[in-house]
């Protein structure tokens, strides 16, 4: 755990000033106008700012509840529609990854570049770090000595602890809300109420709130409206489907998570949060079980041996003892599907694993000695453009193509990457006779008219009228 370094006052002031001028939500991981809130319970402390490509591993470790003493205690989590069963808590990695992005733009410390030192990011309302923990973190909580279920200092200083505290909050939100579907913590869709409650379980985030347009398309996807046109949980759902990019790289692989049937949320009179039916299709995240792979629809997955790994990802689809994440044992078999045999198998003390068996080492075996510890790389930022996720790499289209309606001239729409003549705004030609008035014919301007000289409508109208009148007069004379 990092602690406050005894920097000189001048250095501290310089660091704060630097932090103030860096944009919190910019495209750089270094961004940080980050920390302007010092009237909170815990003063910001210095720590190494993880880079974007480190965040998924940190989040995965926390989501699997695999952080040992590096986090607060996590309660068990309710399962089943009635919530009667409780199991060890974990949550889907994609969901928590996106939530922490929405909360903090993946900022734990306000550093000038990732990998370097910076002060704890403290957002509005005294929200600390990745998970933007606010409960118990205000100055008034210090005055009142408010007790918390976590260590407030570690929330400010440790990335893992901060994330784990976020998991603790999420589990409490899950346990305190009505069920979605069968209340299966592995199903991303079933976290809808908990995600809503993480921000505030209020009317502000109710999808029926009239501030949110009824025809809103998923947040951050094509045709999106302003973020303020979406409740919090829909911002998370939108980002899960359409990931943001930094330095041309998508931060995660998108997945089209299902929305609940929101008409179930309020009755025809008042509004109480009711249990919601299962939003289909469901999606699970293999990361939650320590496996790699993309978010999938469990209904479409065949798992012949029932070991929790789909046949497609299982090197032994009919052997439940062999699957990714299984313990490697000394038996000459690739138990954990990593294309290596017995590489991490353990044997009784004094024996080694050789040819699938634990045996005593040969007498003349040289002493391998203890492996050297890797150098502490804290404070060493990775080289720019260092390795990171490569999937979903966004590429810019060539000028001849389009990704957006506005890339095309008037009268055209962008369809599958190419500008095609607009098939939509046809004149009203459905043959229906509207009582009380004729249908109006709406015409698109001819394409390519952008090169026309601008002309005021009044003059254009007048010139048209003159031409019509002269034509009318001439035709009458001819008649």
């Amino acid at each position: 755990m990092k602690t406050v370094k005894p920097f000189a006052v001048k250095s501290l002031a310089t660091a704060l000033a630097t932090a103030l001028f860096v944009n919190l939500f910019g495209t750089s991981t270094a961004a940080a106008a980050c920390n302007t809130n010092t009237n909170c319970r815990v003063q910001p402390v210095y720590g190494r700012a993880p880079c974007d490509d480190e965040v998924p591993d940190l989040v995965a470790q926390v989501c699997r509840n695999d952080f040992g003493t590096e986090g607060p205690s996590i309660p068990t989590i309710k399962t089943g529609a009635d919530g009667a069963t409780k199991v060890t808590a974990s949550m889907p990695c994609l969901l928590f990854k996106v939530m922490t992005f929405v909360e903090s733009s993946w900022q734990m410390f306000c550093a000038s570049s990732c990998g370097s030192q910076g002060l704890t990011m403290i957002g509005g309302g005294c929200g600390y770090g990745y998970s933007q923990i606010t409960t118990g973190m205000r100055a008034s909580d210090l005055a009142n000595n408010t007790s918390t279920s976590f260590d407030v200092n570690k929330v400010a200083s440790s990335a893992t602890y901060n994330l784990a505290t976020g998991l603790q909050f999420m589990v409490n939100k899950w346990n305190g809300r009505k069920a979605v579907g069968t209340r299966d913590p592995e199903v991303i869709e079933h976290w809808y109420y908990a995600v809503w409650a993480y921000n505030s379980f209020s009317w502000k985030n109710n999808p029926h709130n009239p501030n949110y347009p009824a025809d809103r398309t998923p947040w951050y996807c094509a045709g999106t409206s302003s973020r303020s046109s979406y409740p919090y949980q829909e911002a998370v759902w939108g980002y899960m489907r359409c990931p943001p990019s930094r330095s041309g790289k998508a931060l995660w692989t998108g997945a089209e998570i299902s929305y609940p049937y929101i008409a179930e949320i309020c009755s025809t009179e008042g509004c109480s949060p009711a249990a919601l039916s299962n939003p289909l299709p469901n999606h699970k995240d293999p990361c939650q079980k320590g496996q790699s792979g993309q978010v999938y629809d469990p209904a479409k997955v065949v798992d012949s041996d029932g070991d929790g790994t789909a046949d497609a990802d299982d090197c032994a689809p009919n052997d439940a003892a062999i699957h990714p994440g299984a313990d490697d044992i000394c038996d000459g078999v690739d138990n954990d599907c990593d294309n290596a045999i017995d590489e991490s198998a353990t044997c009784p003390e004094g024996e080694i694993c050789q040819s699938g068996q634990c045996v005593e080492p040969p007498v003349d075996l040289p002493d391998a000695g203890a492996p050297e510890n890797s150098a502490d790389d804290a404070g060493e930022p990775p080289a720019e453009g260092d390795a990171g996720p490569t999937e979903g790499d966004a590429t810019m289209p060539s000028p001849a193509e389009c990704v957006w309606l506005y890339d095309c001239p008037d009268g055209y729409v962008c369809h599958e990457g190419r500008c095609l003549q607009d098939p939509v705004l046809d004149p009203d030609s459905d043959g229906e006779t509207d009582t009380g008035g004729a249908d109006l014919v709406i015409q698109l301007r001819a394409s390519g008219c952008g090169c026309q000289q601008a002309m005021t409508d009044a003059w254009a109208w007048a010139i048209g009228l003159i031409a019509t009148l002269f034509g009318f007069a001439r035709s009458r004379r001819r008649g």
Partner: protein
Amino acid sequence: MSPLLLMASALLAATPTPWLLYIDLARDEATADIVAARPDEKKSLLTLDILPNHAPHARLSPEGGTLFFTRHTVPNHLERTGELVAFDLKRRATRLVAQNVDAEPPLALSDDAVAWFETIETRPAQESDEFDRATIALFASADGERRELVRFRDIYGAHFAGIADSGIVLYVVTPKEAAFYLLPLDRRFIEKSRAPVRESSRQTPVPRAAIEAEVEGMIPSGLTRLAAAPTGPVAREFTVRGDRLFFGALTRDRTESALYSLTVPGLDELNARGDSDSAPRLVTQKLALTGKRSPAPIVTREGLLYARAEGSGEALRRRDWASLKAAGDMAGVPATRQSAGNARAGEQKLLRTRGTMRALCADSSGKVIAVRRAFEGQAELLWIEPDSGTTRRIRTREINEAIGFVEGIE
């Protein structure tokens, strides 16, 4: 009449083309522009710092001289750190009206008067079957003076539905119901704002105790309950003209949407009705079923524009005021599915699309309407002149929100 006379009268009748005001921003950028545009020209009137992706909520004053907007620049999960700003369109000058306002669109009462909400405190849900509740105050500012008009306790939320002849119409959601309320508005409050500032002209703030209500989930005195929302807290897209409120809502079985209206009584009528149980109840009226599409009604000089699902797409329809008045006279008589869903007298189809469509605003002359159309995940802002039958696209950035039409900002 000779052609020359016709031409002259036509030139005289020609009105200047209005400007469409809209907010324009690109994803992940920390500024937004307030833009004035016509089909062939546009100009940025103001560039604002914002929280990235968070467009300000803006409303234009009825006179068209001031734009009021709320914006947020500081991340805060409760979004109570917004500021309310008045932007004088002619002078291009901004003035801070209030801070710590809610992330709600303000209600522009006049060029110099505006109303807004502030969440005073929240009470987290105690049980799994309830939402957080809030104490919310409604403030107004006129002539630089700030007044608390009303305060709600233990409600879910409150929204402005619009300004009727007799006052401000509010949509309030409590744990028990969603309903429309009328806050009688002293017109002098608005009109005084137009007079020169004089200390003696300032009104005495209403004592807070007089306007607070301590009853849980109830509405303070001074408000008149008009009617419950027809199908629970699923109403939206409010628009008011004169004494008529129009809005969209899901139908009772939640399978489709419908266009509803409510006639807001005058103050005299409300006073005469009193609280007597024998007084006839006000009821909302279903005007049209709109299928899977929320109607998004807006009022124009000619009538009411709304969208309706039609075939594989949608149609934008206009219903004239005469037929609406006739329908209003039938308030209380349930509309049958047939009469509500089919074409009727005084109704006209303006446009049809395979995508979705929403009328956003119309200019005062009724000559131009702004429409947002979305098709295959792409959205565009359209400038439509129904009388000349033309549709043109306003080129915008990815995120845009139309505000209204103005004139005289050259």
